[in-house]
């Protein structure tokens, strides 16, 4: 019984840490123009892991919603942002 409770507790507590998906926020330098920021929407939209993205010109952020069970590494995000002609300031992740 003790073993079952311990196992259940571990699953409940640690479960989210193993879950893929979630929300990633990329802080992007140079993102001042709507017309030009379309490139980010186009290129992130081609990624298999991406469910949706939201661009905030005020906050200079790109919020990326990942599909359940999918991941997108920081390196890949930096690569896409750089490929689009911008620079990454930092990346925040929330599950």
């Amino acid at each position: 019984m003790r073993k079952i409770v311990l196992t259940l507790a571990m699953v409940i507590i640690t479960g989210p840490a193993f879950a893929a998906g979630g929300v990633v926020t990329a802080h992007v330098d140079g993102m001042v123009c709507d017309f030009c920021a379309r490139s980010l929407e186009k290129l992130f939209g081609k990624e298999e892991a991406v469910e949706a993205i939201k661009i905030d010109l005020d906050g200079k952020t790109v919020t990326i919603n990942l599909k359940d069970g999918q991941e997108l590494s920081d390196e890949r995000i930096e690569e896409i942002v750089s490929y689009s002609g911008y620079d990454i300031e930092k990346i925040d992740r929330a599950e």
Partner: protein
Amino acid sequence: MKLFLLTIGLIIFTMPVQARPVSYPGGITAMSMNDADKHSLHLHYSPTAKTSLGYKLEYWRDRDFTINALQMNNLLKRWNNKDSQANFYLKSGVGIAYSDAGAFDHEKDAAAFTGIALDWENRRFFTSYENRYTEAGDIADFFTQKARVGIAPYIGDYGDLHTWIMLQVDHNPERSDPVTFTPLVRMFKDVHLGEAGISDNGDILLNYVIRY
């Protein structure tokens, strides 16, 4: 000397033009530009965020000649700052010029042009400068430059209709009125960008850009 001073002055006071000559990797852009000097159509493809390759058709109104050219634009340097962006481009093309005007009888000559373009913008202000030297054999040989300043009357967010009020200064030394001023409105939403204005000589400016 006067031309030199005006060039330097335009660069210093306005620094960095136009809808971007280079798009995102895989992006295709169509631009139709019409002003006092010329009508042009430019279709380009950007294999990278630093280069675009395309076809350019120009009809120069006063000189009454056309150029069909292959144009390459290169982003030489981009400055991405927290609240602003600046760009430095080289824009060049080679092709064929054609004229049947005046003394020319179906004259065809090799043509080439090159120039730099700089722009700086944040979400409220915009400034740009570009120049170009055009060589088209016996048909034409001239230098032009222009600069812009702009202000956004309101700050829209992503997906909104964006509006800019701008003033364009054109310097075309070979025209009877070498310097012209054109107040214009730029509006863009999604992948569409349009500009409309009228110069102090009454010439209409109408530009449209779409980016796929």
